[in-house]
C-alpha cells in the first residue's frame, strides 16, 4: 500500500473512532451542562468530574436484557436501530474537518448529506411500526410527518449557500468562505437550517416523536438494552452531524485566526453548537404537534423560499452588472 492509501485509511478510522468515542462523552457533557443550567451538580462521583459515568452507562446498556416483544415484527424491529446509526455515520463521510481530513470528497456532498438524513427517517418509522404498540405508532407517525416536513425547509435553506458557492461539494463551500462566513449574507438560511436541523435530529424542544410526558418514550418505547443504546448514540452523533454541518456551511468550517490549527477551529465551532443544542434543551418547552407543523409550513417554508429567491436575484443582478 502506498502512503496515500494508508493516510486515507487512517483518516477514515480516525473519524470513525473519534465519533464513536465522543458520542457517549456527549451524554456526560449534556448531563453536566443541564445540571449547570439548572443549578445542580450533575454526575460528579465516578472518576474525575464524573467522566466514568459514561462507562457505567454503557455497561448498564450492555448488560440489560435485550428483549424483543413477542408481538413485535422481529426482523424490522432489529433493523430499525441500525439504520439511524448507519445513516448518520455515512453522512460524516462528506464532512471536511480540516484541509485534507475528509473521508470522501464528493461533488454532490451536500445532496448526499440530505439523502442520508432523509433515510434516517426510516429508523423512527420502522421502529415505531414494528413495536406494534399504540404509543410507539403515534410517535413514529409524528416523527414521519415532522422529519419529512422539515427536510423540505432544510434542503431549501441550504440552496442559498449552494447558489453563492456554485457547487454541492462541501470543500468548495468551505473555501468560498475564506474571507466572509456565509452566516452574514445567509443569516435567514442559517436560522432556518438550525431550526430544521434540531427538528431533523428530533432533539428537544422538537422531540415530538419521543415526548416522554405524552407518549412514554414514543417510537422507542419497546426498545431496551443495546438496541435502545443505538437510538441513543444515533441521536448524539446526529447532534454532532448537524453542528458540524452548520460549521461547514455557515461558519467557515476550518477557517479561523491562525494561532490554532484548522482542525481545532472546526472542533471549537462544532462544540459551540453542541452547547447551543443543550442550552435549547435546558430552556425551551416542547411545542404542540400542530404548532410545529404550522410553524414549519406557514413560516419556515415561505421564509426559505423568499431567501432562495432573493439570493438568486442578487446573484443574477451582480453577474449582469
Amino acid at each position, binding site marked *: 500500500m502506498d502512503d496515500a492509501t494508508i493516510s486515507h485509511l487512517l483518516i477514515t478510522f480516525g473519524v470513525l473512532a473519534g465519533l464513536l468515542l465522543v458520542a457517549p462523552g456527549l451524554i456526560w457533557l449534556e448531563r453536566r451542562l443541564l445540571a449547570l443550567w439548572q443549578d445542580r451538580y450533575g454526575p460528579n462521583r465516578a472518576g474525575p468530574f464524573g467522566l466514568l459515568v459514561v462507562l457505567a452507562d454503557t455497561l448498564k446498556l450492555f448488560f440489560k436484557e435485550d428483549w424483543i416483544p413477542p408481538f413485535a*415484527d422481529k*426482523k*424490522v424491529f432489529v*433493523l430499525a436501530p441500525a439504520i439511524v446509526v448507519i445513516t448518520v455515520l455515512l453522512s460524516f463521510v462528506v464532512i471536511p474537518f480540516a484541509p485534507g481530513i475528509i473521508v470522501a470528497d*464528493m*461533488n*454532490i456532498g451536500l*445532496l*448526499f448529506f*440530505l*439523502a442520508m438524513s*432523509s*433515510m434516517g*427517517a*426510516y429508523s423512527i*418509522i*420502522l421502529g*415505531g*411500526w*414494528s413495536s406494534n404498540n399504540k404509543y410507539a*405508532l403515534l410517535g*413514529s*407517525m409524528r416523527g*414521519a*410527518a415532522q*422529519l*419529512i416536513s422539515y*427536510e423540505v425547509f432544510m*434542503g431549501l435553506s441550504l440552496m442559498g449557500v449552494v447558489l453563492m458557492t456554485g457547487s*454541492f461539494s462541501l470543500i468548495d463551500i468551505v473555501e468560498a468562505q475564506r474571507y466572509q462566513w456565509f452566516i452574514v449574507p445567509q443569516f435567514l438560511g442559517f436560522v432556518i437550517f438550525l431550526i430544521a436541523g434540531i427538528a431533523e435530529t428530533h432533539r428537544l424542544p422538537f422531540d415530538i416523536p419521543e415526548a416522554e410526558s405524552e407518549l412514554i418514550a414514543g417510537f422507542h418505547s419497546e426498545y431496551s438494552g443495546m438496541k435502545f443504546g443505538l437510538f441513543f448514540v444515533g441521536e448524539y452523533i446526529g447532534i454532532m452531524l448537524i453542528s458540524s454541518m452548520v460549521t461547514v456551511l455557515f461558519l467557515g468550517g476550518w477557517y479561523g485566526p491562525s494561532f490554532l490549527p484548522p482542525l481545532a477551529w472546526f472542533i471549537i465551532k462544532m462544540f459551540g453548537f453542541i452547547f447551543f443544542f443543550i442550552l435549547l434543551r435546558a430552556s425551551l418547552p416542547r411545542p404542540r404537534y400542530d404548532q410545529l407543523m404550522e410553524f414549519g409550513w406557514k413560516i419556515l417554508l415561505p421564509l426559505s423560499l423568499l431567501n432562495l429567491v432573493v439570493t438568486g436575484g442578487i446573484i443574477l443582478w451582480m453577474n449582469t452588472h
Partner: protein
Amino acid sequence: MNITFIIASFVAVLATIMAITRYNLIHALLYLVISFLSIAIVFFVLGAPFVAALEIIVYAGAIVVLIIFVIMMLNLKEESVEQERIWFSRKVILGPSILSIVLLGELIYILLSHETTALTTQAVDAKSVGLSLYGPYIIGVELSGLLLMSGVVGAYHLGRQKKKVQHRFLENQTT
C-alpha cells in the same frame, strides 16, 4: 463492464422481485427502498450523481415514507395478509412474470454482447441538469408544476375545516 454496476443492477432486480412477492406490505416497501437505493447506485455509476442523490432524497426518502405513513394508519392485520395470499396466486402472476423474464433475458443479452457503446462516464452535474430542464424541457417542467399545483389545491380543499363554533350564541358573530 463495471463490476459495481452489475452488482447494483442485480440487487435492484432481486429487491424488486422480493418487493412484489412479499405479503406483508411494510416488508415489501422495505425491499422497494433497497431497489431505489440500488438504482441510485446505478445512476451514480452511469455518471449522473445529481440524479442519484435526488432519487434517494425524493423516492426513497420522501415518497416511500409517505406510503408507509398511510399504511401505518390503515392498521393492516393478518386478514389482509391472507387476502393478499389468495389474490397472489400462481395463475395470476404467470403472465406478467413470463413477460418480464423475456425482458430480463433481452437485457442480459445486451449487457453481455458488448454491442452497446462503452459506459459514458462523462458526469452530468447539477448545472447541466438545470440548464436542460429550464431550456429545451421547459414545457415539461411547467406541466408538472401545474399538475402539482392541482394536487395542492385538491389537498387544501379536502383538508379545509369548517369554522368550529364553541357556543350557539357565538354562531352569528363575525370576527
